[in-house]
């Protein structure tokens, strides 16, 4: 439950909801949509109809942007679907604390220390690169109140 409350608190900052409606037929591949109440990236989108003279229905296959789980849905093309607000921002990694929190600096210099080092491969890569003293950029994915480091990139001389 705590998570749920967090959700409301976090997205409430601009007074907007976590999603907005969009006509199903106007969605596009690689865009986002809520499927089974989860924010998903649309990986497949096709239309079909019931009977030869029927109206279009949209068949959506989406991947949960956080868990990678696959969801599907089919709905009449005239209906509205919820589309999640999805934000991805890059931060400079400044520090990894002993208890596994990341020190991150935004482009405008704002600092934050509320995100944990992610599990799995990205986390491992992050630690290795950090220990090797590399200059690291973290991409933070944020949607529906969840927030997680989704990608890391080591800067080279080519950048910036």
């Amino acid at each position, binding site marked *: 439950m705590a998570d749920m409350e967090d959700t409301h608190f976090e997205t409430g900052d601009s007074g907007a909801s976590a999603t*907005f409606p*969009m*006509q*199903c*037929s*106007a969605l*596009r*591949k*690689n*865009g986002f949509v809520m499927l089974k109440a989860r924010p998903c*990236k649309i*990986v497949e989108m*096709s*239309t*079909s*109809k*019931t*009977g*030869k*003279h*029927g*109206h*279009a229905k949209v068949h959506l296959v989406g*991947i*949960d*942007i956080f868990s*990678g789980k696959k969801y599907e849905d089919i709905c*009449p*093309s*005239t209906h509205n679907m919820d*589309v999640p*607000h999805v*934000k*991805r*921002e*890059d931060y400079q990694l400044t520090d990894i604390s002993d208890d596994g929190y990341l020190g991150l600096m935004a482009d405008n210099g704002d600092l934050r220390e509320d995100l944990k080092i*992610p599990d*799995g*491969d*990205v986390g491992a*890569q992050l630690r290795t690169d950090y220990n090797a003293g590399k200059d690291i950029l973290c*991409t933070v*994915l944020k949607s529906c109140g969840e927030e997680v480091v*989704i*990608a*890391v*990139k*080591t*800067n*080279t001389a*080519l*950048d910036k």
Partner: protein
Amino acid sequence: MEKQALAALESAANIILAPPNLVSNEQRHNAEGVFLGFRKSKCPYAVCRQILETSNSDYVKFEAAEVLKCALIREWTFLQESDILSLRQYLLHYIISRDIPAFVQDKLLQVLAIMVKRGSVEDFGQDRGNILNDVEALFINGDSAKQILGCKLITNLMQEYAITVKSTDVGLSWEVHYKAKMNFEAVDLKRIFQFCVQVISEIIKSDTPFGDNVNNLLKHLLTIIESILSWGFMASSLPKKLIGLYEMVQRADHAPSLRLGMQWKSIMFAPQFLPLMFQIYWKVRDNDQLSHHAMTCLVQLASLNGGIMAEHTDKMLYIGAFMENFLKLITSVTIKSKESLGISQITKNIHLHFVHDVIALPKALQESYIDDLTRLTCCFIEGAATEEVDCDEKCYMDSFEIMLESWALLIQEYRQVTNDFLGQAATCIFNTYLKCHLSSPDGSRKQGTDLEVEEIEDDEDNDRTKFKDQLQTIGLFGRIVPDQALPILYKLLEDRTNKLRSHLHTMQSQAMSINDSVTLDNIFEDIHWTVLIAGHTLCMDSDGETPTIPSDLMRYSMDMNAKGLTNLDESLKVMASVQQLGNDAECSPLCDHAVRIFADVLKLCAIESSAAEVKLGHFMSPEVSCTLMWFLKRWSLSYLLPTESFYQEISPVLIGALGKDTEGANFVMNFVLAKIQSNICYYNSEPILLRDTVELFSDVVGIKSKSLYIVKTEGLWNLINLQSKLQAGMLPVNIRRGLYKGFVLAGTALKKDDEAVQYYDQILKPVQQRFKGVLCQENFNRIYQQDNIQKEIQDLLECFIGISKGATMGTVVILFKFLGPILSELPVLLNMYHNYQVIVQMILDLFGQCAKNVLCYLSVADSNQLYETTYNVVQVYAKCNQNRFSTEALNEEGNFQDLCLVMDLLTYILSKDCLDLNPLINQEEPTVAASDVALYGLRFIMPLMTLDLLKYPALCHQYYGLLTLINDIYPEKVCALPEDMLRKLLTSVEIGLTQFTADVAQPCLDFVAGLATHIFKHSMKQSAAYQALMPFLKLIMDLTLSQQICTDMVATASLCIYTLICCYSEQYQMLVQNMIQMQTDPAVAERLATEFNRLMANVPLTCDRHKLKFRDQFDKFICNVHGFLLVK
């Protein structure tokens, strides 16, 4: 042979044949090893004979036969003639006298056939003649088992000779294979044919049904006759590549036509021959096992051509006799669904090969032939309709389609001469087709499955694609009898329109029942098909040519007008009345028929729009709407604003109603544009319908003579205003870009510069202002991630893509003035949105479209500007994605899509170097080469091209395609690349040669050959490229010798090897020495050395035309070497 060895083989055989639960994997593996070892034995002839004599295991006997085959192919040249003869005689005797299982027998027969073929290369078929004598003797003296054995032997022999290009198995070069085949054809094929026909003619003298033995024998004999009649007789002048293709097609079961020389005359023209062949079919017709083969014989005989037909009288006699027998057959039986295919193929073959002769046949014969054709066609149409509902088979449908092809050939011929045969046939077939697609009571359409079927995926083909070919021919029939066809069509349309209208009227007041919805679906289906048929009758497929009004219909319209049966005034009135929906009044009979059908379709459009306006749109059928859009497109392209100079004669009604500067044309244009507008407003939830709508729009404005008028219509400006009011994110993907492509295309026809500038200002300024408005917001840096901003950006990018897609030579200057500054903003935008894939891909796509559609017309300065922004965009993309590690699901798939777009972009950029249409090309010299841009871009992108990504076939092809293209145009630039880049490039070429399929390896070979040629011609021995390319000599040699390069590519590989040898002759010598020294057997080493000497004999290393000689010698070299180098 020692008993032990035999016992070992037999126990291994037992293990291989044992059920899986009794032996372990390892045991099985070992047993397989035993046989693999056995296959490599040298001079195994005595051993194999012994096995055949003494072994109790059939499997071991089978393996012995296989070992014999391999050894014979490998060691043929070392064997004594007498040994071969004795082995051959032994095997034949063994097969005839022993009772052995079929699989062993078949293998032994194959060995025998291979021996005969190899022998025939030296004795020109003498031995083969002896074998055939033996076979004939079997027939005279033997029982049916012996006779069947004889047939099998013949079949095996024929198989060995049939294919030349792919049969390198027998260790002969292609030329030798080919000579052997020609010899076989000239000497023995005719003899076999004659003999088999003779035997069959005796057999079928007895009464049916035949016994099992006889049926079995018949099957074998018919198969032989069938394959002779389908034999690939080939002119000797064709190059190997063509013959290879030909043989491939032939094996894929497309028999070539029967092309025979003079020497077959006595057989084919013997008076009793054709009746006999038909009689054979007649006798075996009820036996499914046999009838098919007999039918194929008839189909092939209907295609007889070649030198044999040199005399016209022979041809007439032959086709006359064939027709007589054929008509006898089809008039005296009810055609079964299975034989319908054969029958239709026979007619098609007749029309393909004898059409001139058919129309010269006696009138009575022709007449009854046309009657029968018509009857059969109608019968197949009806059969096809039943099939669709009742069963999965498609025999009738296929036969019907072949029949239509066959008609098309005949009609073409008949139209050259005046006659009245066709009218009746055309009416009959047209009506039957229509009837089968209409619901009762007018038609006989069964309650089909697809009207009720639960889900239909939209990527399935729609009817107009699926049945395109048949609809085209039905339209052709309709145009033969316009006085019949057009009235039927407009009556049907008007009837169904009235029904639809009254239905909608009822539904406005009461709820719809299930019954209603079935009725409504039936009305829709009827309308759908009637419009499809009408569209194909009124207009022809133009396929890239300028669409025009078909001459038959022009004539018809003129005749009707001349007779006073139609006039312009009434036609105009009917057109003007299409929007009066309440009015059920009869249409004026004085309206031109083509105009009337068109007016009916317009009326349907009006009903649809008005239904949407009163919120009944959900009752309408999107399928029908799509068909209406398609009809409007077709009709507008041909009939609206016809260009008078295209026609010799022109109907006053059509030109008066739809010609330029007429009120009618203006009305129609505005109507069509209003319909487009209405669809976009009311049916924007139907992606397919909108796609068809946009297609209608951009196709019509794509024709200058029409767009010149369209830009002046009120309808166009209404459409422009309406769509500009639609908010971003309302329309399905790709619709906005389609509209903008149309708007831009429409202005192409404006001749005066100021007119054009003014027009494009009106179209482009608002978009530009929107773009500025978004980007110039003070807080854009903070709000760019907001969804509404993103949506706006996406929508604008859609507009830009559309605009670049509509660019033409005449408008590109104006358009680039607009696009240029926008493009230069995009690298920054890309950097900002690099985490948002949709926008990233749209930006890449936009650049790709500009490079594809705009770049080729640009001046030097503008090109340079586009190059620079492209540079920047690719660089930003690479920067954002280098060293990036993500756990996002399907991250790789996303990268793949991005990279495909980048590859597209670079390829299009490069094409500027091949095709530059800059009008000032003669006055200015390009300052930056497109290839440098492409290479520079590639340099950024290569680090992102991982091996995993290259495993996506589409990306793989694009990548290697681009490499080869660059190398083709500018090998010097590739040579001059920095060393690390060159190394990376060559590594990927090496990967391309070894890791993927032939279609990737092929461009890689071209790449290497191209680079090597450049290095050789410019004597670049000191260069880095020279060093870097060197390893490829050994690599490609090894790949070719170990058969890792497929046989199709050996020719390309050999050219590549030749150029490499030219560059690296010393290294080549060393390579050869090494290979020879590595051989343990001195005899092999010696042969290898000889072969290498022969390979290079008389081939100067000049890297020019001598490569062809090398290619031929290499072909022989590979054949000879494979025999002993690769003991498989």
